[in-house]
């Protein structure tokens, strides 16, 4: 066993990936056995939860060891990329197609494999660490599911608790995400992609008795499916024009491909990423995904699922042509600003966070589109920690208030739940981009890149220069608004306030650890310098060749405007904070203070949902209903072709008529058969006679 790992240490990451699959398999097997054996009345055991959490922590341990080993190895072997990639990646042929004798085309094969570099080593570590903290939190949050009689207050039903099933789905989710991360080919990424989709479907619809939850699950699944159609197109293009799904071969062939092919490939991938990462126009599923339990939201928004889209854009960066990148820039920018504006007027604690995720993802997408590879992915990593923290803190609040999510009924909670309040404050400071918090490093890097690019190329796209700063200000405003509404001031709902309580240690420990990470994950020495940040240096190694030279030039240029950028970014954050504070002081935080039409526009989320409803959902339902009524019409007579059923029935009626005609020939009398035989014989002989003459 030790030799297996010391020879190819990349297997550590493979183990980290398959461990959640193992816990999924064990849990599903145990659940199956339990259903056969135990009685209804037995209280469900807590063991599945502990087991899944333990396995996840084991995976986190594996990936941490793997990450540090990789960094060491890279120091020693970075001048021999061959041996490095041999130690940190493996590939096995899985399906071999072509090269038969008659087939003159080249043999093609689909291989399975993994390849570790700085990017996915960091990502796997992030996912497993954040994932195991979320698992730990879920042990506390989902404790009330561990009964035989769970009362769902929203759906008004009594049902059996299903904590085990929750951890089953969580494990599958983690496995799917890790598969995407370590894969070295698009095929495996696609498998992980679909698994992520299906497990998010299960988890969002976890409270399946609630109508809203099952609808949200369907919505998420269908929206993702639209994106996946694009991914499939990209796969088809890769297969037909390159003949392989392996990323290294795709990268090698990319410069030789024609522009149209590259464009189609890029747009297809982009479509998939937009679906997963909830970018305009496929963003509507993400806020609805709040119907799932809060730890699920944390997992979806921080570590798994939405990170996948941004990760894939980063991974496949060399395949994206300039035209595609422009699309990414504008898609990201629009998502970023729209979601930030919507978040300003939301009053549901989870929805504010959901829209902020959307907005931050748009921020990352825009950065990647502009060419800020390191900055965009750094933001993905830091965002994962503070967004997980924010969601878990929100979960802790919801848990403490007995499933109350409305901000207008909170207030003053910091005396009742101090740990949650102050850890969440750290998360808010991080996402607002206050200096020395992890969010500051990534945000500052993206903003300085934006400024540097504008300085280098001229301000050709003023919107892209202006919007990020505006979004940064808005982010700071709505996050502080959230915190003030929930924790500061005096309680708005006395009854709720009285029954509020701090969460047990199993929920606060993950909060504290995540808070620690949200502060210091991007630190280096000295902490004030972004270039010295360890995470930045680490990510920088994985940047694709063509990108790093360009970003180097922009980086040099942006140094000139360094102080200006910092000042503007800080000013935006502080203005947001100041605005939130002043409105909190005057007690007007719940009213938006905007003109009514703007307020209505934001509250209705720019009417995306109702437009989709009008354009797609209702016509579909209309078509379905009309064809159903056509189908249900009585059509007993044959050949009455009025609908699909009519056509089908007329065919079958014809066959029946033919059959009943032929049936008469079978008389059942032996002598008739012999007679027919004899006649046939004579006829046959006659024909033979004529032919031979």
């Amino acid at each position, binding site marked *: 066993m030790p030799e297996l790992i010391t020879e190819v240490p990349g297997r550590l990451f493979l183990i980290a990936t398959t461990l959640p699959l193992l816990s999924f398999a064990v849990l599903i097997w145990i659940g199956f056995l339990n259903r056969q054996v135990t009685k209804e009345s037995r209280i469900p055991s807590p063991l599945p939860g502990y087991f899944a959490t333990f396995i996840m922590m084991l995976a986190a341990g594996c990936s941490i060891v793997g990450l540090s080993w990789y960094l060491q190895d890279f120091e020693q072997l970075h001048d021999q990329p061959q041996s490095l990639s041999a130690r940190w990646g493996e590939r096995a042929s899985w399906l071999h197609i072509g090269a038969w004798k008659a087939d003159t085309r080249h043999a093609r094969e689909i291989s399975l494999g993994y390849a570790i570099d700085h990017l996915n080593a960091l990502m796997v570590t992030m996912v497993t660490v954040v994932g195991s903290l979320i698992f730990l939190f879920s042990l506390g949050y989902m404790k009330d599911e561990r009964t035989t009689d769970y009362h769902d207050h929203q759906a008004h039903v009594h049902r059996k608790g299903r904590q085990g099933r929750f951890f089953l789905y969580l494990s599958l989710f983690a496995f799917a995400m890790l598969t995407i991360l370590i894969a070295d080919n698009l095929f495996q990424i696609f498998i992980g992609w679909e698994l992520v989709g299906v497990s998010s479907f299960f988890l969002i619809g976890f409270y399946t008795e609630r109508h809203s939850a099952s609808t949200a699950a369907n919505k998420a699944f269908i929206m993702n499916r639209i994106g996946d159609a694009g991914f499939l197109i990209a796969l088809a293009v890769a297969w037909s024009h390159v003949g392989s799904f392996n990323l290294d071969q795709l990268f090698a062939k990319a410069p030789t491909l024609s522009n149209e092919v590259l464009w189609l490939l890029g747009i297809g991938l982009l479509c998939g990423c937009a679906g997963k990462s909830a970018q305009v126009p496929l963003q509507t599923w993400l806020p609805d995904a709040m119907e799932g339990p809060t730890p699920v939201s944390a997992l979806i928004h921080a570590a798994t699922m939405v990170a996948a889209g941004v990760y894939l854009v980063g991974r496949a960066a060399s395949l994206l042509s300039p035209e595609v990148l422009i699309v990414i820039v504008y898609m990201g920018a629009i998502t970023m600003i729209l979601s930030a504006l919507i978040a300003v007027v939301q009053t549901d604690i989870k929805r504010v966070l959901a829209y902020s995720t959307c907005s931050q993802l748009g921020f990352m997408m825009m950065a990647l589109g502009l060419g800020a590879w390191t900055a965009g992915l750094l933001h993905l990593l830091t965002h994962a920690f503070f967004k997980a923290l924010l969601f878990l803190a929100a979960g802790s609040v919801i848990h403490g208030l007995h499933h109350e999510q409305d901000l207008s009924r909170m207030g003053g909670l910091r005396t009742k739940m101090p740990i949650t309040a102050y850890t969440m404050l750290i998360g808010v400071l991080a996402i607002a981009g206050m200096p020395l918090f992890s969010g500051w490093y990534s945000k500052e890097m993206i903003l300085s890149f934006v400024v540097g690019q504008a300085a280098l190329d001229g301000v050709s796209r003023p919107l892209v220069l202006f919007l990020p700063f505006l979004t940064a200000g808005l982010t700071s405003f709505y996050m502080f608004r959230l915190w003030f509404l929930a924790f500061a001031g005096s309680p708005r709902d006395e009854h709720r306030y009285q029954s509020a309580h701090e969460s047990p240690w199993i929920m606060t420990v993950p909060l504290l650890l995540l808070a620690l990470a949200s502060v210091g994950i991007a630190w280096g020495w000295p902490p004030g310098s972004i270039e010295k940040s360890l995470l930045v240096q680490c990510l920088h190694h994985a940047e694709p060749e063509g990108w790093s030279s360009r970003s180097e030039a922009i980086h040099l240029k942006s140094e000139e405007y360094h102080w200006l950028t910092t000042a503007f970014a800080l000013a935006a954050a502080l203005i947001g904070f100041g605005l939130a504070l002043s409105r909190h002081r005057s007690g007007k935080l719940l009213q938006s203070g905007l003109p009514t039409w703007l307020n209505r526009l934001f509250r209705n989320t720019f009417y995306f949902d109702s437009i989709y409803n009008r354009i797609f959902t209702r016509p579909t339902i209309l078509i379905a209903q009309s064809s159903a009524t056509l189908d249900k019409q009585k059509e007993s007579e044959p050949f009455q072709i009025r609908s699909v059923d009519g056509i089908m029935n007329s065919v079958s009626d014809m066959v029946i008529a033919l059959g009943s005609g*032929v*049936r*008469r*020939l*079978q*008389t*059942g*009398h*032996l*002598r008739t058969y*012999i*007679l027919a035989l*004899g006649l046939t014989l004579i006829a046959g002989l006659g024909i033979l006679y004529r032919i031979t003459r």
Partner: protein
Amino acid sequence: MTLLPESFLILSAFLFACGVLCIITKRSAIGILIGVELVLNSANLNFIVFGCYLPSFRMDGQMFALMVIVLAAAEAAVALAIILNFYNNRGSVDVDEANELKG
């Protein structure tokens, strides 16, 4: 006096016709079985005749005749078993009563 093969062939054809007629006209299953035996024997006669008159076919003709005899015996055994079962069920051996599979 030498016997011409044609006379044997005519005899064989006569036997064959008798057999077929027997199969067609008889209502009793036993009668049909006898008709089938006649048909088989007419074929056998053909084999023997050609085996006798064609030197190259000598061995083969005799072999085939033996084969047909064996087959006829087996066939008779099977057919009699069927007839016996049929009699047990119906109380008669009239084949016109065996018409349950008609369309």
